[in-house]
């Protein structure tokens, strides 16, 4: 019984957190890219994502929460990719550090520590280069390992080994970049809980704000991004029983800024504001997320 209650709590609180984590690996700030060069290919990336959840939604509408539930989550993944074979093949690891506070009228809990590791590989399927233009498509696979403590409250990991398969396309010409990504997350059981599978869809529009004309490499540059980051998740099951208050759809509008300081580093920031939020049943919704991060060339 205790196990079931714990699993419900994990499901209730973390469905969105794990989705957000899956979205955030790419150089356009929240969308991945098929371009595995420079800072995108051999750079250590880290950021802290602040997730604020206070609004209780029932069938997509806000309702009064007598319990005054509130969750504040800070996820700091460290992402280390390494690119091989003429920059066409990439392997990497993501180590997330989690810091979670959950408050309500009757309960105050907090957990800190390492979350679930993720190993990923990416392969460039298609490349068409022209003058000042490139179009590339890559396929990606990832496995999430149950390294985070699932028994803590709130849990730091899902306790299951999960898989993700994705395709990402990117087109850059002069100052403009467009990226499109689709990810299918295949989630397995941790013994009692089977988290619902999810489909994540990301679109990013990037524009080099400064300089208007990029003369000679390296020069500082400022990029602006406008992204749409969405996810639709199936309901969780505990011992085969469907959990009504789990899964749903969330779509964020995510403006962001990125400053590339030179050859070896950049700083970036992104705000995510939910455009569509339709969780199944009654769930605590995400009010906003903010990501602040950096990438540093190490190889």
């Amino acid at each position, binding site marked *: 019984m205790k196990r079931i209650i714990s699993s419900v709590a994990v499901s209730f609180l973390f469905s969105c957190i794990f989705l957000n984590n899956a979205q955030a690996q790419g150089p356009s700030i929240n969308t991945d890219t098929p*371009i*595995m*060069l*420079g*800072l*995108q*290919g*051999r750079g250590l990336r880290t950021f802290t994502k602040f997730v604020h959840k206070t609004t209780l939604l029932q069938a997509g509408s806000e309702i009064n929460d007598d319990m005054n539930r509130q969750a504040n989550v800070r996820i700091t993944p460290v992402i280390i990719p390494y690119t091989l074979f*003429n*920059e*066409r093949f990439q392997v990497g690891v993501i180590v997330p550090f989690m810091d979670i506070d959950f408050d309500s009228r009757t309960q105050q809990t907090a957990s800190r520590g390492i979350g679930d590791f993720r190993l990923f590989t990416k392969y460039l399927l298609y*490349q068409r*280069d*022209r*003058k*000042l*233009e*490139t179009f590339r498509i890559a396929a990606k696979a990832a496995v999430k390992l149950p390294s985070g403590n699932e028994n803590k409250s709130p849990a730091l990991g899902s306790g299951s080994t999960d898989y993700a398969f994705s395709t990402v396309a990117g087109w*850059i*010409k*002069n100052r403009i*970049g467009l990226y499109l990504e689709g990810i299918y997350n295949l989630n397995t059981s941790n013994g009692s809980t089977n988290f619902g599978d999810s489909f994540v869809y990301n679109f990013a529009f990037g524009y080099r704000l400064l300089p208007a*004309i*990029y*003369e*000679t*490499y*390296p*020069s500082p*540059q400022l990029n602006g991004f406008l992204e749409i980051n969405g996810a639709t998740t199936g309901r969780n099951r505990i011992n085969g029983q469907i959990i009504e208050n789990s899964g749903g759809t969330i779509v964020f509008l995510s403006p962001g800024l990125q400053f*590339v300081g030179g*050859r*070896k580093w*950049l700083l970036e920031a992104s705000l995510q504001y939910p455009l569509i939020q339709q969780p199944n049943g009654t769930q605590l919704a995400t009010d906003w997320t903010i990501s602040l991060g950096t990438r540093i*060339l190490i190889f």
Partner: protein
Amino acid sequence: MKHTIFFKSILASLAFLLAAGALFGGQKQLSVRIDGLSCPFCAFGLEKKLKSIEGVEKLEIKVNDGLAILTYKDGAAIDENLITKKIKEAGFTAGEIKTIATKEEKMDGDKIGLSIKGMSCESCVKRVKDALTKIDCVHDVDVDLQREKATFVCTDTKFDKTKFVKAIDDLGFEAALEEE
């Protein structure tokens, strides 16, 4: 006395080496078109690969032109296949490789003048200069905003000069060849 002979020998050797350099040396510059060079922060690997080529003394990556300019040390051997290979290894596609004329070589050729109407600012001057510089044979471009004029040297005496006019007209200006 022994010291004097020794220093004289050193000086004579240095003089010989300098003379030989002047006679047989001379830096070579290559311009390499790099397709796919659209994200400047991707260029680190490209820079690293091209700099690793033996004999390359200086490298300039001109993102806006999609070009890498390689300056070789005096007398260094140039292997175009190696350049192409390095660019591929860096994740880009190599295009045309051209030798850039030295200053002495640039002096040979036709001096051409264009009158250009419609330029109103320094940005227009830059666009005109860039458009002319991109033409294979063109060197030493000078654009005068006030006099509404561009002058340059074309090393290919058989080059169709109406192409200069078209390159400028395509920018939205009105160009005409000046009488020689």
